Each structure stands twice: as structure tokens, then as C-alpha cells.
């Protein structure tokens, strides 16, 4: 890591290789779904505004777990290109789900319940950090942290086998990524970033073909951007979906 990057990091900024922090990254400059809220139905408006304005407190994770989880979320769904005022809360949404014990209506037979899975997974990540670098995960450089995350993605953790023995690593990884994208892409700022129209009742859409924008949507203006050179996540290596991994129940199996 260069001294420039280290200095930037010390100041709380991570360089974006020519792209600084913005209130709204993405190829749709000026597009705002929230600006359209008067065209939404009252119930939807209430739910979305609540999502934007009321960020729940941390109630499930301990302070130490929350600090570690925040560092993890910063890599699973990095937001270094967003200015501080426009970072989308991810950790509080995951915490809220676990605190309320909300889940998707099924659990893989070889997985512990989600709250237990998160606590174990965090412990395992801590073990890996100490095994590889002799420091806690939160004390590692962004590059080191990214490498550990990539080892989870690859299903090749450097340590904590005793934990992964009860927590299939690919399922833990997918749950983590799913939870992060659920929080991020549920947020209107993320819709603005990707050019998604957002809520559309009762107005609806009328330009259905050729990718045409509605009169209130914005056309795409692409620019070249690069991930920070400390990151190893800007690559694609197809993973098998969770349903392609055979389940081998260790407990709680069928009668």
C-alpha cells in the first residue's frame, strides 16, 4: 500500500482512482426517486421514508461484534465512493433482522439458526485475522480485510475449521452477501445510483420498450470508474447458488 493511500486512510478517505466521493455515484446524474414521492401511494411513501429517516439502533450485536460487522459490511458492499452523508446503512438493517428473528421462511438443514450463524461466523473471521496477521480484523489494512473476505467467497478459509465444521462457509457467505444487498438495494439512493424507477403505483410506466426513460427518469451517462487498488472484489468468479450445495444435516433432521 502506498504512503498516499495510508495517509488518505488515516484521514478517513479512501481514494477512488480519479473518482472522489460523491453524494450519488452511478450513471444517472440528477436522477432522484425520492423527488417523485408525491406520485407514490401513502403506504409505500411511509415505508420508504421510514427506511430513509429512521435507522434502527444496534440491539442484536454486542459493541465489539458491531464494530467487526461494520468492517465486514464495508467490504461485502463497499461505499467508499459515497460521501458520509449518503452512505446507506447496512449493519443496522442486518442487526434489526436478527434482533427481530426475521428470516426468509426456510433454513438449510445443515445450518444453525441465523442469529447463531452470525455470531459463529464473526468469531471465525476473528480467528482467521489473528491466525494470518496476528491482529483483529478491524485493525487490518483494507487489502488484508478484502483478502479474508475473498477467502470466504472462495470457500477457502485459512483457519477456524472447528467453527466452519458446523457452519457451512458457502452458506454463511451467501447469507452475508444477501443481507448486505437486501439493505443496500432497498434504499432509494441505491435506486438513483442504478437507474431503477422505484415505487410506481398509482402512476405506472408508459415507456416499456427500448430502455426508454419515463419523462421523469434520466438517461444513462456512463463514465469509467475503478475500484480502489487495495480491493480484490472487482472481479467475477461464478459461485454455485445456495441451492446447488447439497445439504448434509448434522442435527435437527427429519424423524
Amino acid at each position: 500500500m502506498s504512503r498516499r493511500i495510508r495517509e488518505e486512510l488515516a484521514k478517513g478517505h479512501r481514494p477512488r482512482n480519479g473518482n472522489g466521493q460523491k453524494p450519488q455515484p452511478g450513471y444517472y446524474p440528477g436522477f432522484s426517486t425520492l423527488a417523485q414521492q408525491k406520485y407514490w401511494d401513502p403506504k409505500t411513501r411511509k415505508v420508504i421514508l421510514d427506511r430513509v429517516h429512521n435507522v434502527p439502533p444496534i440491539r442484536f450485536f454486542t459493541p465489539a461484534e458491531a464494530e467487526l460487522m461494520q468492517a465486514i459490511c464495508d467490504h461485502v458492499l463497499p461505499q467508499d465512493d459515497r460521501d458520509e452523508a449518503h452512505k446507506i446503512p447496512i449493519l443496522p438493517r442486518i442487526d434489526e433482522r436478527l434482533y427481530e428473528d426475521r428470516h426468509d421462511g426456510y433454513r438449510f438443514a445443515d445450518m444453525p439458526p441465523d442469529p447463531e450463524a452470525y455470531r459463529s461466523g464473526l468469531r471465525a473471521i476473528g480467528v482467521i485475522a489473528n491466525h494470518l496477521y496476528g491482529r483483529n480484523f478491524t485493525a487490518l489494512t483494507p487489502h488484508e480485510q478484502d483478502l479474508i473476505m475473498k477467502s470466504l467467497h472462495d470457500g477457502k478459509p485459512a483457519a477456524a475449521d472447528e467453527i466452519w465444521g458446523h457452519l457451512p462457509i458457502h452458506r454463511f457467505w451467501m447469507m452475508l452477501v444477501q443481507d448486505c444487498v437486501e439493505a443496500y438495494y432497498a434504499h432509494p439512493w441505491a435506486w438513483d445510483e442504478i437507474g431503477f424507477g422505484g415505487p410506481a403505483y398509482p402512476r405506472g410506466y408508459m415507456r416499456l420498450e427500448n430502455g426508454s426513460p419515463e419523462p421523469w427518469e434520466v438517461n444513462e451517462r456512463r463514465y469509467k470508474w475503478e475500484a480502489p487498488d487495495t480491493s480484490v472484489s472487482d472481479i467475477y468468479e461464478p459461485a454455485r447458488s445456495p441451492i446447488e450445495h447439497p445439504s448434509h444435516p448434522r442435527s435437527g433432521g427429519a424423524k
Partner: protein
Amino acid sequence: MRLAIRPERNNSASKPHRLGSMQRLTSPMRHFAPGEEVDYVIVGVGAGGGVLLQRLARAGFRVIGFDAGPFWDTEQDWVSDEAGSHQLYWNDPRLTGGTQPLALGSNNSGKGVGGSTVHWAAFTPRFHPSDFRVYSESGVAADWPFSYEELKPYYELMELELPVSGPAYFPWGHPHGYAFGPHPIGGISDILIRGCTRLGIRSVAGGPVGILQGSRESRPHCIYRGFCIQGCKVGAKASTLITHVPDAIANGAEIRSNSMVARINLGRDRRVTGITYFDQDGRERMQKAKAVVLACYSIETPRLLLNSACPGFEHGLANSSDTVGRYLMSQAGNVVMGYFDDLVRMYKAPPANAMSEEFYETDLRRDFVRGFAIQTVGPLPIAFAKQMMSAKGAWGWGMRRVMMDYNHWGTLGLLGEILPHADNRVQLAEEKDELGIPVAHVTFNLHDNDKKLIEFGKNKVMEVMWAAGATEVAQEARYAHLVGAARMGKDPATSVADRYGRTHDIANLFICDGSVMPTQGSANPGLTIQALAARTGDYLIAQGDRIFNNVKPDMERPQVRHDLSPPATWGHGAPRLK
């Protein structure tokens, strides 16, 4: 008598209960007195239960429909938002395992009046005549205990009652046309049509889909907002909540929502006497009925039968064949994503819009039997991000990057027939839910024919995507829909129910949902479930009191009753090829 409003909304007595943006549930709902025996209890008010409830009520039977979830007020309860629609799904705990553990919840299970029809995409193709004769024609799986011809009039009824919008000529299976015109097409349909056309594959567009393309009675036309599977606030997409339940209530049916049925009660003479349920306050209650119909779909129907084990039925009620819970099916639903240099904006227009059934039938030149369909899919951002997680292994900056290109991607779906296997099943786990009922443990494994079919099918869909002009193509495995797990058949030793859904073991216990299907074809099952329910309704109505008395069942085929449709549905629409 009081208005049919959700009981917890005491302050909403002045507000009408909205079913879609225009329709209101205005008729006061009947409430049967505690302890009062009714003619029928229907467990589950979804695709099958909703239609059957309406038929029985219209014919004058005293009937209660139980549903474990709420009686939705669409304007107050639903949102035009992906993350905010979580409550529509069956989110109670279930275990999933096997070599290909199925995703459940939002993928295939609804909870609340309307069931999964609330969040289906509403693709409504019919099954093909060959689907009823898979064993006879292909030497695998099983035949249905009746033919396509017997179900055909009920397809025609349901296509008018939902109604189904679609092309004037649908060339596959038994060719037919739709009385309600097709929808305009969106970006994904363009891709499907373009790719198929370049490869010489026939396709149809604008349906068949259970969504109104023009306003009709108290239901408005589609506004093309693309939130079909988040619940249609517009009321353009058919769900039994808005198509059949209002008419059921107007004809004296009661809906008991937020009421989870835990057991079916067996009396003397191997006949059921009613059910035990937990009411909205979690109190255990009983409801007596002369006959019970299960319509809880392919996981909860077998779960309820298995949990109702009792002396004489130690391995589950109506399970003398050891078939309850077995032969569970899901269709191969691989999602194929293509990147296009031009914008697509796939979030607009209903995801269910164009399709091809060119590969539906067994082709002896291939190394597998049966086939598949190709259909449009239009995931919203969260669903698409999850697909990219597996299809491209995206995370971190890679996820951010691919999602910034969301509007450049289009997706098509495989819908492939997976054969019924005894080891694909629903069992009871040790683990219990918060009411103390053992949770379902679902096991799903692929077999040789299934694997070959999926390999061929997904490659064909990818070929279509390339032919459409995609510059990058990715895909992820997925399984769509659930059927089977309490199948019907002629032989009581190898099936749970007879041709009308009556359990072989118990003469006044019926099943009326997708779980009775012996095979699944590669058509979305929703229309067929509703057609089966209308047919079961005609049978029960024709039998009358014979169902309630301990007499030998009469298996005579009932007359098709066109007079039991909800008002202004049968006979409307432009006549088309039949």
C-alpha cells in the same frame, strides 16, 4: 353481522376494505357461531381454496375458509416496494435439505387470503394433453387419473374468471385462443422474441397471463409497473383474493384469517369431524364440519396430514399408502441473464409477458424425456443482485459495478419439468414452530433425467439470449413452483387421493391444491390448480349430501356448471378458437 375487516383494525370500521385500487369488500361477512357445525371447512384460501370456497358458497353450502395469514386490505397492507413485501410470503420456519435444497418462502409460498396467487407472476399456460399421460407416453412417472379433455372446460372457465390475457392463437399443447387481448410488450419480451425469432423458435407475447390489459367491472387495467410478485396494489393481476373471495363472501362464506389449523380431527367410522386451530390470539379452538378440504399447498397439506397422525393412522392421516409428503415436485427455473449494450430497463411491464413452449414435449432425439418452456423474468434490484451473487460470484466492488449496469441486463427463465420421485418429500422435523407444531422438513434431489433436461434446457435458453444480441450471458440454478406431495391416482396403494381429490382412506376428507398433481409438465401450475378446484367444486356440489353421509362414493363425472362463475365473467370476452 359485522364488516369483513381485519379484527385488529378497530379504527378502520369507517374505511372500506380495499381489494385492489377500486374494488371494495362491501358485503357484511357471515360469522358462524362457536360450536356450530358447518358443511365444509376449507383449510387455506389460496389458488385452490379460494375458487372452491366461492363455488361451494354459491351453491348454498355452509362453508368456512381458514387461512393462517391475514385478510389483506391491499391499499393499507401492500407497498410498491421490493423489500417491504416480505410479509406476503410464508415466513414460518421450515428446514430444506437434499442434494438441491429448495428455496422456500418468497420463492413459492404465500401466507394470507389469496395465498401464493397474491405474489405469483400470473403466467397462466394450460398443461398439455401429454401431461396427463406421462407414464403411458414416456414410460416414466405416472398418469393422471383423468385426461386433458376432462379438465379442458375448467381451463376455459378459469381463463374467463381470472381473466387471462393472451394471444388469439396459442399454438402448443391443445391449441386455443384467449378471449382477452394480449398486453403490450416490455424490454424482456423484446429479447425473448428477438432471440427466438433468429433461431426459428416460435414464441408468443403479451400472455397468457392473468392480468387485465383493459379495465373491467371494478378492476382497473395494468399500469406496467412491474411489481407483480410484490402483490398487485392495482388489482389488475388476478389473485383469488380479488377474483373469487369477494363473491364467496357475498354468498355467505366465512373467512377465518390469521387462524392456523394444527390438526384434522378423526371421529368414528374413519370419518373426519372437523379441525383444531389456533385463532388470531393464539388460542386453541375446534371447528366442526361435515367434511374437510385441505388446500394448503404442497408443504402445508402433507404437514397437516402428517401432524394429524392418530390411532389407526399412526403414520399420518390418509397415509395408508405411505405417499403423503412424497413425490414433491418443483420445476427447474434456471435464470439466464444477458448483458446488452443498449438499455433494457427490465423492471417495467409484468415479468410474465412472453414465452415459448416449443420444447415442451418429449423429443426422442434428446437423451431425456419430457421438456421445458422458455419464459420472461424481470427481477427487481434486490432479486437481481442475489442472482448476480451466484451467477457471477459478485460481491464488493464487483457487485456495485454489475448493479450499476442493472438497466443493461435482461433475464429469461427456463421452466423445466422435473419428474416425481418418492425421495423428494415433506416430513416432520423434531423442531417445532411457535405454536408447537413440528416444522416441515423438505428434501429435494435431482435425478438423471432431471439433470439432463436442465443441462439441455439452460443451454437452449442461453442460446436464445446470445441470439437476441447479448454480449455477455450468465445463469444461475433455481427451482420454481411446488406441486405434488399428496398425489391423486387410481390405485390407493400408490396415491393419496382419487380423481376428485377425495383421500382414498377417508371419505369426507378432500385435497384441493397443487399437491394432488401426479406430474407437473413445464407450465406454471396456478391456472391448473384453479381449474382443478372448479372441477372438484362441481363434483362436491353434484354429490350434495352424499359427501356428508357414510355412503359409497359415486364417481360419476359431474356436469360442468357455468352458472357458478363470479358475476359477469362466464360468457364475457371475445370468443376465440377453442
